């Protein structure tokens, strides 16, 4: 299967020293890839690097096209949606305005309205609160909103930064169910970053384990799950 | 060795400054005197904005207060001109300190805004009919320019005498600034400018220092104002508009922020650029000021003084 996203020898910098040290990874088209690791391993930085939000060296290719060095907004317009660390909600906007801005890069007006209805169908709670100020939503609802906002782009590739963070288990289940669904039905490729390794490995096909900026293990989800070091350090058994 | 070189240079400059008035026409002396007056006010602004980081776009107001204080003392109370200088300085010290107190609550942009408002409003305040008895209203106050004193052993023209009075005052003010700013106080000012929270954590009484900086800065500009009153021979509200405040700012930026010699370059710039460029057009000085402000911020943020310093270092002089 072709790779929709490929990173080769990727280094990322916040200052003079690299946070990501020449890592390589791929996301299969239509697949789900997870990046695991502890705090500070560089997981968020990896997603930021893909979106051009940090200084990088090395190659990043999206469906064969080089995107390293491009501006964030241009990468997004190529079909990469990013649900960031902290959700990035427009707190002063209403729920509906958050969804509308998610679709900004698209041109097809009528289909945007259809997509909004679809998103409301997936997350009925957002429909209930569509005129409410987004900053007043609960954590779980804001996460639903963030994912929905990303979906409004009709992306080819969806990046998710710690989607389970700070959320109640039921909400997490819901979000992960939705992710599985959009991957299957809409063929959206997913790259997610998670501290909760069990959850991530349950969803993903492939996974990479990052430790202080380097990939220490990679393989299919099953392989990683049965790896002893991973089990002991990250899965707790 | 470098210190001796600096001292030598300073002495050479002082000697040159004393000799100059005998070589130039009266008009040129007058212009040089004005340049020195600007230099004092620029140094004043620099203490507040360059060293202490509090942006003032309204220093023309303190200049006006000093000028009017001197003019009123001279015309209404018969105070001799040289005595008005310390009085004007004291008045402005207090005024500046008092303005500095509410200014403590204003940061960067907001302080600039408040002082800008002051700078725009001051001419109207000076024209106010209610205080016309003192200020002379729209016409202002006319003064007789002081004559050289009787006890001088040699003859000096009025302009030459006023030049020396100003030179002497400048010398005193610059020396005072040098002593203040090279020591602990200077470092405290800079600490507050660059790392205000750390400065407080280190035990500096930030509020006191900032208010005093305002007071001292106003004092300098007030002294310059007082000098201008009798050097020019009159005070009138429209001379003290926002463009005066902007001129002082230009002088500071071009001369060099946080630089004492920079004030001299700034003063010369602000005095002579209009003279030279007015030949081209009445508006040319302001266009030049504007362009220099922007260009200096992009290319020479440390001003002429900073550029010279870099050159000296580069060529190991």
């Amino acid at each position, binding site marked *: 299967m072709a790779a929709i996203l490929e990173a080769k020898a990727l280094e990322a910098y916040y200052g003079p020293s690299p946070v990501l040290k020449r890592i390589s990874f791929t996301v299969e088209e239509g697949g789900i890839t997870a990046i695991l690791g502890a705090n500070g391993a560089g997981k968020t930085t990896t997603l930021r690097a893909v979106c051009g939000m940090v200084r990088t060296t090395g190659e990043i290719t999206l469906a064969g096209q080089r995107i390293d060095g491009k501006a964030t907004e241009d990468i997004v317009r190529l079909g990469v949606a990013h649900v960031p660390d902290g959700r990035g909600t427009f707190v002063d*906007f209403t729920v509906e305005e958050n969804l509308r801005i998610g679709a900004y890069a698209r041109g097809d007006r009528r289909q945007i309205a259809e997509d909004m209805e679809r998103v409301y169908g997936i997350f009925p709670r957002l429909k209930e609160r569509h005129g409410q100020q987004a900053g007043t939503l609960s954590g779980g609802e804001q996460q639903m909103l963030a994912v929905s906002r990303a979906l409004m782009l009709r992306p080819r590739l969806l990046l998710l930064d710690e989607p389970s963070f700070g959320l109640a288990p039921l909400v997490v289940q819901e979000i992960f169910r939705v992710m599985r669904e959009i991957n299957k039905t809409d063929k959206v490729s997913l790259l997610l970053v998670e501290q909760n390794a069990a959850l991530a490995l349950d969803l993903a096909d492939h996974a990479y384990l990052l430790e202080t900026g380097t990939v220490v293990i990679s393989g299919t989800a099953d392989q990683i799950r049965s790896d002893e070091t991973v089990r002991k350090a990250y899965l707790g058994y | 060795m470098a210190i001796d070189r600096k001292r030598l240079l300073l002495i050479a400059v002082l000697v040159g400054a004393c000799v100059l008035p005998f070589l130039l026409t009266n008009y040129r002396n007058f212009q040089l005197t004005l340049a020195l007056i600007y230099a004092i006010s620029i140094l004043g602004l620099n203490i507040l904005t360059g060293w202490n980081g509090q942006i003032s776009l309204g220093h023309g107001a303190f200049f006006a207060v000093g000028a009017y204080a001197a003019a009123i003392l001279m015309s209404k109370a018969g105070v001799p001109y040289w005595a008005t200088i310390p009085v004007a300085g004291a008045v402005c010290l207090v005024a500046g300190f008092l303005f500095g107190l*509410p200014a403590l609550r204003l940061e960067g*942009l907001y302080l600039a805004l408040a002082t800008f408002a002051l700078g725009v409003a001051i001419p109207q305040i000076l024209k106010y009919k209610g205080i016309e008895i003192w200020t002379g209203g729209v016409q202002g106050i006319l003064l007789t320019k002081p004559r050289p004193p009787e006890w001088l052993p040699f003859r000096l023209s009025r302009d030459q005498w006023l030049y020396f009075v100003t030179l002497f005052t400048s010398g005193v003010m610059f020396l005072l600034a040098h002593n203040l700013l090279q020591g602990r106080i200077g470092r405290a000012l800079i600490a507050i400018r660059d790392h205000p929270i750390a400065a407080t954590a280190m035990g500096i009484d930030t509020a006191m220092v900032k208010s005093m900086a305002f007071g001292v800065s106003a004092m300098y500009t007030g002294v310059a104002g007082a000098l201008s009153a009798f050097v020019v021979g009159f005070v009138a509200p429209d001379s003290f508009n926002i463009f005066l405040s902007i001129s002082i*700012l230009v002088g500071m930026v071009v001369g060099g922020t946080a630089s004492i010699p920079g004030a001299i370059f700034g003063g010369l710039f602000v005095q002579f650029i209009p003279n030279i460029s007015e030949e081209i057009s009445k508006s040319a000085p302001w266009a030049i000021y*504007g362009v220099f402000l922007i260009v200096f911020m992009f290319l020479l943020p440390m001003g002429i003084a900073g550029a010279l310093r870099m050159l000296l270092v580069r060529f190991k002089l």
Partner: protein
Amino acid sequence: MDAFLHQVFSGLAAGGIYASVALALVMIYQATHLVNFAQGEMAMFATYIAWALIESGFPYWTAFGLTVLIALAGGILIQRFIIRPVSNASVLTVVVVFIGMLAIFNAVAGWVFSHTVKSFPSPFPSKSVLGGLLSAHELGAMGITLVVLIVLYAFFKWTPLGLAMRAAALNPVSSRLCGVRVGWMLAFGWGFAAAIGAIAGMMVAPIVYLDPNMMSGILLYGFASALLGGITNPWGAVAGGFIVGVLENVLGAYVIGTELKLTVALVIIVAVLTVKPSGLFGKVLVTRV
């Protein structure tokens, strides 16, 4: 009572102008956290351009429209080439650049158009309306201000571009993640602010006559209005404008005399900044230590 009403209505008319200037200031402040000290001079310069167009034979409303477009373009260019390079520099640098622009606009206006005071035509008939309370021009100016406000409101609330501009001001990082070209949004914000300023200038010039220093006092009232209303709140700016306009006129007529009117602006500015910096309707900004 009649005289008092007259002052109030005059105040509202002036308030419309102040509201426009305040709105322009707030637009730039909301997007960039910068105060545009050159706003007044930019508006004055645009008004001179309108004057030149009218003098060369363009009908009033054509000149009006062209000026608005030129101001829009001018604002965009200024943001891209002068403001953007210094947007991350120190406060002093930014303030100095703004003052530099103020000086340049003032000087170039005087140089190109001379310093002689000029009269500027009004598109409205010269008679008084509302039983003598307002001149037709004052009423017309208020009407134009209202139209501008409504158009802006509709634009920002309902169009995608308006939404994107609001997003860019609110949360530039998240906006980029939605494909918004934040740099251009800021430039448009400047363009809009310049255009609004131009309209304000063209509305006020028939009353105070056109000369390079026309806007300096009005800018001060604009600042006072924006601060009073809350510099983070466009509606507050508008409300502030009308309040300041009425206050200035009423105080000027009954309390302090007309010569000290600018002092009213100064006092409002200092009072708001020291007592309640977020203004009447603005948000309190908390800075993390």
